[in-house]
């Protein structure tokens, strides 16, 4: 974790009201894992005063010579993000990161479904179903899931041992947006995932309805014991997903949203109630096992 002034490489609108900013920061790019965030001071003024947290949308790629780059994807939601959208390439931005805990990544196939190791190998042998990673995105909540999909894809390609039959791991992304124009990262996800399904509120693309409709439909067709759900989006969506995950008994992780002040765990301002008491979204999260969250 560093505090550093990084150069803005580019800052472009990718959908109405949505921007992608690329930053040049070797330290953050090297350390970052999916689900972590950077804490950004949008300018040097006193209003807006506090930093704003942004999930890391992706890091660059060695093959493209961009391995020093860090991307964020954001929506203009107020004064701070409005100012951010006006920042120009080559300007410097004061950033702290990477911060927080990311999505638990599979280290070894048998650790794949965290906490289920003891029975997993037996289950794998018995089951014909693939191990499925399901990414559920609501709105610009898709931001960290592209980074996650990329890491899962690497895992899928590189780390599956020979004893695993091909096709044993499947990555499915479910993306929800208000309308067709607001669907973010569809192309990236199609490249990284085995399947991508879209839901729009107005039905202008994919399923007409909410993304959790797609989730329920999917979960009833797969072996949930072998699957993990990774969600990012507004808190009401995560709350709904927690309920669905409970019914289908699927391990689920969500990236939570809160007003974050310090971002480093010192102020206890971004508290969320969990089964263990109040925890800090910035330091203990932002990714939590959704089972542990107690919605107020």
């Amino acid at each position, binding site marked *: 974790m560093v*505090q550093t002034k990084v150069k803005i490489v580019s800052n472009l609108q990718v959908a109405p009201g949505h921007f992608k900013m690329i930053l040049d920061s070797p330290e953050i790019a090297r350390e970052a894992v999916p689900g972590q965030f950077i804490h950004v001071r949008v300018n040097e003024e006193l209003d807006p005063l*506090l*930093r704003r947290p942004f999930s890391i949308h992706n890091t660059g790629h060695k093959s493209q010579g961009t391995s020093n780059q860090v991307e964020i994807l954001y929506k203009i939601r107020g004064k701070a993000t409005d100012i951010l959208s006006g920042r120009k390439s080559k300007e410097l931005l004061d950033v702290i990161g990477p911060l927080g805990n990311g999505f638990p990544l599979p280290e070894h196939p048998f650790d794949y479904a965290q906490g289920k190791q003891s029975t997993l190998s037996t289950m794998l042998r018995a089951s014909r179903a693939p191990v499925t990673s399901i990414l559920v995105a609501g709105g610009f909540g898709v931001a960290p899931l592209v980074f996650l999909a990329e890491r899962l894809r690497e895992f899928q390609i590189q780390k599956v041992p020979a004893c695993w039959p091909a096709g044993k791991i499947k990555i499915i992304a479910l993306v929800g947006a208000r309308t067709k124009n607001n669907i973010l990262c569809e192309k990236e996800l199609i490249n990284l995932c085995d399947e991508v399904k879209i839901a729009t509120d107005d039905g202008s693309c994919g399923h007409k309805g909410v993304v959790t409709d797609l989730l329920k439909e999917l979960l009833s067709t797969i072996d949930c014991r072998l699957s993990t759900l990774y969600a990012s989006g507004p808190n009401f969506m995560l709350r709904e997903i927690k309920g669905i995950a409970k019914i289908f008994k699927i391990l689920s992780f969500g990236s939570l949203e809160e*007003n974050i002040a*310090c971002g480093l765990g*010192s*102020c206890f301002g971004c508290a*969320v109630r969990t089964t263990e008491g109040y925890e800090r979204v910035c330091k203990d999260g932002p990714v939590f096992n959704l089972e542990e969250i107690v919605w107020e």
Partner: protein
Amino acid sequence: MGVNLSVEIGKLKLKNPVLVASGTFGYDDTYEELIKFERLGALITKTITLKPRQGNVPPRNVETPSGMLNSIGLQNEGIEDFIKNKIPQLRRIKAPIIVSIAGERIEDYAELAKSLDRVKEVGALEINISCPNVEYGEEGECLFAQDVYMTYGVVKAVRETTGKTVIAKLSPNVTNIVAIAQAAYDAGADVLSLVNTFFGMAVDIEKRKPKLGNISGGLSGPAIKPAALYMVYKVARAIKLPVIGMGGIISAKDALEFIISGANAVAIGTGNFVNPQVYLEIISGIEEYLKKNKLTDVKELAGTLSE
């Protein structure tokens, strides 16, 4: 020629007058990765209470123009955990440690002071009688720091329990800050720390609901600086105790305003959230100012406001 930035706060000798305020830098080694602690004047810890406190219902913070409201409610693991688990982490930090304590009754403060008196890493105690987010005493409506008798009682109880430097942290939510400061002085405080946050609130007009889970909270940040500065000025003039001035300090200029108005040292609070490295800028800014004004010692500057 170098300038001397060292100051004395009670029995504590600080290498410079720039501290970090309670609740804004944690109470363990949270900032170790980011900060050169050896450069800090002192670290004032997040407030510790006797028993663990779970804190208030979220949302606990909301930004306001050039400021923020918080209603954390002193979430902490309690004194036992602090001494057992946090002190060993703080031991590595090469800055004087000032421990902030709060209780619901006078006896709580005395017990906390007694427990900490034995801990050699603790350089001083800051008595937090001014947190706007917890209820004190039987009635629970009034802050200890809003009442001269309660202020006197708490400070006296701590004074009688500890040989360490005693700092009383005062609230700005009073009609006469000098009267409260006088009570702390009479009870034996070595140092005064002011101000804590101002009572405040913010409303979501669409939902017609308060933006904070606890309805109201404490306002901090640059928005409160002029009001905090005025109180520091009033107290520093009237009471013969060293003052740690705070309230919206985010630049060397802010810190200098407090020092010129009578503060012997300053503390950065909300400014740490904006820029955790701001203490370095403030220390070097003070140094440059002294050089530019041909002063060799920061102590020569304190209270030099010409009226």
